């Protein structure tokens, strides 16, 4: 029971210990290993690319071991902060592109020379800007992705749905057909599996109605979820999710992994990243038999024929300021973001970090919908403190309140705005 409090206290002790040792630490002449923190997505989605990069790295640096440690999105920053305090950071760390600003602004990352890395001239603009602070580069774009609807073609057909929906209204009416056909008998069935804390996909509705999370006005950040447009988007989201999803309102898309839930057969569609499609077919966790009946399409906008803007997610690779193996770390990043590695990452359904590979998935019907979804996209407010809104679960809490009906859309949005104002201007 007391473990956490004790841990907090110990953490404080570590701070002090680190403070006294950091200054006197001696750089080892030749490291025999580097530590790499990647997110679990790579482990589920493209483990062979990681292995190949490490092999390529080892060919250049024989005798140097690469320890790849997979992290989860929920707590990787907390763990990273603890390593900063302890002076034992990893040598390479993956960041979500909405997480980098705070770490760049506070000097936690080592400045890099972009031209030393592969394809730096053709890096995706969105990711490049997430690695740039005051005109200096602090990380290397890794990959990007936008979410699209992954669905069961067989169920859509059996429910009498022709083609894929071209507007939110049609998405809703198609979903209702599915609920009618499958949802009556099977009370676990969701036409659209949508856990309540999926804030990326929920905010897409806000941006679709020209709303925003926050804007900068007269030098201050102002939460704008209570604006008319945002409220409209959130209300539509509530209606659609309420009618089509029986997923828990208090969990997120990774707990349990929605692709795996999908693979169990009680789901008509979910909104996910490109890599989640093959993940649903994973022979140990998913169901390979679904391969012929799976499809994907970009989420339509409320305006017929347009696409809903999706979050332009992505990841970057950085070297923490305290890493003692900068050269080795940079070499590993080079191997992992080489043209061939990025091709591998792209082939499982991601958008590669460079525009020269834009056509790599041209002929792949599995991935084209995700690339199309990325064409219309939105991004989080670029405030240095933004990641605290994510880590404080401000949007997730608001969504739980909205989807569960605990608060009205307006009341939930107002309280979220208040917190956003406090955090972003803090």
């Amino acid at each position, binding site marked *: 029971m007391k*473990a956490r409090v004790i841990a907090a206290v110990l953490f404080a*002790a570590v*701070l002090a210990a680190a*403070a006294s040792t950091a200054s006197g630490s001696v750089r080892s002449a030749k490291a025999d290993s580097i530590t790499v923190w990647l997110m679990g997505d790579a482990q589920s989605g493209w483990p062979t690319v990681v292995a190949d990069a490490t092999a390529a790295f080892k060919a250049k640096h024989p005798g140097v071991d690469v320890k790849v440690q997979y992290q989860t999105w929920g707590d990787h920053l*907390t763990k990273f902060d603890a390593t900063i305090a302890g002076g034992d950071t990893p040598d390479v760390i993956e960041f979500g592109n909405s997480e980098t600003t705070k770490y760049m602004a506070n000097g936690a990352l080592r400045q890099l020379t972009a031209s030393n890395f592969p394809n730096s001239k053709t890096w995706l603009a969105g990711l490049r800007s997430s690695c740039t602070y005051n005109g200096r580069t602090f990380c290397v774009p890794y990959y990007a992705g936008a979410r699209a609807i992954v669905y069961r073609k067989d169920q859509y057909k059996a429910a009498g749905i022709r083609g894929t929906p071209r507007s939110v209204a049609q998405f809703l009416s198609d979903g209702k057909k599915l609920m009618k056909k499958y949802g009556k008998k099977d009370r676990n069935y969701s036409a659209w599996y949508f856990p309540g*804390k999926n804030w990326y996909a929920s905010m897409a509705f806000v941006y679709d109605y020209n709303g925003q999370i926050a804007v900068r006005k007269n030098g201050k950040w102002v939460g704008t979820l209570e604006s008319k447009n945002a409220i409209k988007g959130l209300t539509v989201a509530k209606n659609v999710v309420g009618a089509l999803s029986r997923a828990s309102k208090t969990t997120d898309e990774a707990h349990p992994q929605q692709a795996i839930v999908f693979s169990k057969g009680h789901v008509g569609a979910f909104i996910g990243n490109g890599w989640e499609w093959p993940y649903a077919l994973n022979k140990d966790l998913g169901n390979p038999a679904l391969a012929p009946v799976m499809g994907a399409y970009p989420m339509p906008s409320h305006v017929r024929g347009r696409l809903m803007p999706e979050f332009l997610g992505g990841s970057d690779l950085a070297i923490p300021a305290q890493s003692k193996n900068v050269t080795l770390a940079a070499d590993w990043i080079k191997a992992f973001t080489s043209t061939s590695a990025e091709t591998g990452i792209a082939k499982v359904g991601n958008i590669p970090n460079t525009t020269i590979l834009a056509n790599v998935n041209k002929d792949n019907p599995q991935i084209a919908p995700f690339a199309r979804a990325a064409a219309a996209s939105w991004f989080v407010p670029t405030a240095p403190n933004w990641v605290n809104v994510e880590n404080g679960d401000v949007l997730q*809490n608001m969504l739980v309140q909205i989807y569960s009906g*605990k608060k009205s859309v307006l009341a939930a949005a107002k309280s979220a705005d208040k917190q956003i104002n406090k955090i972003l201007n803090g």
Partner: protein
Amino acid sequence: MAVAETELPLASRRRPRLSRHRVVGAAAPYALLVPTAAVIVAVLGYPLYLLIRLSFQKYGLFELVRHKGKSIGFGNYTTIFHDAQFWHVVARTVVFTAVNVGLTMILGTGIALLIARLGRFMRTLLTVGLVLVWATPVVVAVNIWRWMVDYEFGVANWTLTKLHVGDFQHHDWFVSNWSGLGVITAVIVWGAIPFVTITLYAGLAQVPQELVEAAQIDGARAWNVFREVTLPLLKPLLIILTSLSIIWDFQVFNQVWIMLGERPSQDYYLMSIYAFVQSFRINEYGLGSAIAVVMVALMMVATVVYVRQMVKTGEVR
């Protein structure tokens, strides 16, 4: 010895000479305390000092990277005392603790009284059950409970639906923080009962049977026997157990944290969670420490009551 002492002049009896022997004799207990004191200072005192120091500093990510905080006096305390959420969290923590301690003590005492009246076989069975509960690590226990109240496949929803209590298909226990904290209370009370029960059962064995019989002969009913005979004899034990329970339940962390997938929403924040989130999620280590210090201060109050009672109990005996 006694003879020798009487021969000493009065003055020197009042003020014994500081012989080497006496000094060593007087210092011995303190010398024996030194190792324990040193350990306590090292593992508790020093971190506590650092915590307090941190609570007077601005210590964010910027300071963390440089391993150097900026002193801001009472700034962090002013911030939290002006923060409405902080007072909500304090109130929630106090109510939560009261409910948990209350239920633990009532149910624990009840089960102890029950065990005392059971036959040998049932008593052994129940005691083994209690010890097993006690032996279950918190993390394991919380996960088991979490599966039981699972949204989709939980046995709780299934059973309640089968028993026609209502339609619990896809009932989400954690939408409302009342029912969510209710589940967490159940886990905590469930885990805390064994210690209270077994301790009180041992205490009950000390209640002289003659007293009970005498009261019964005088016509006392079961409730009166309990109130007038058993309770007063158990009182010191009950007070110690209650104080300990307050200390434990006030700083509950794991049950909430694990049950809610390590991302509890704000209406589940207890003081420990709030301090943790401020420190390790938002990187406001100074603010987090200030909250922790307030928590320690509140705990001190409970501890003082506990220690006073211990001393008092000793005097009465």
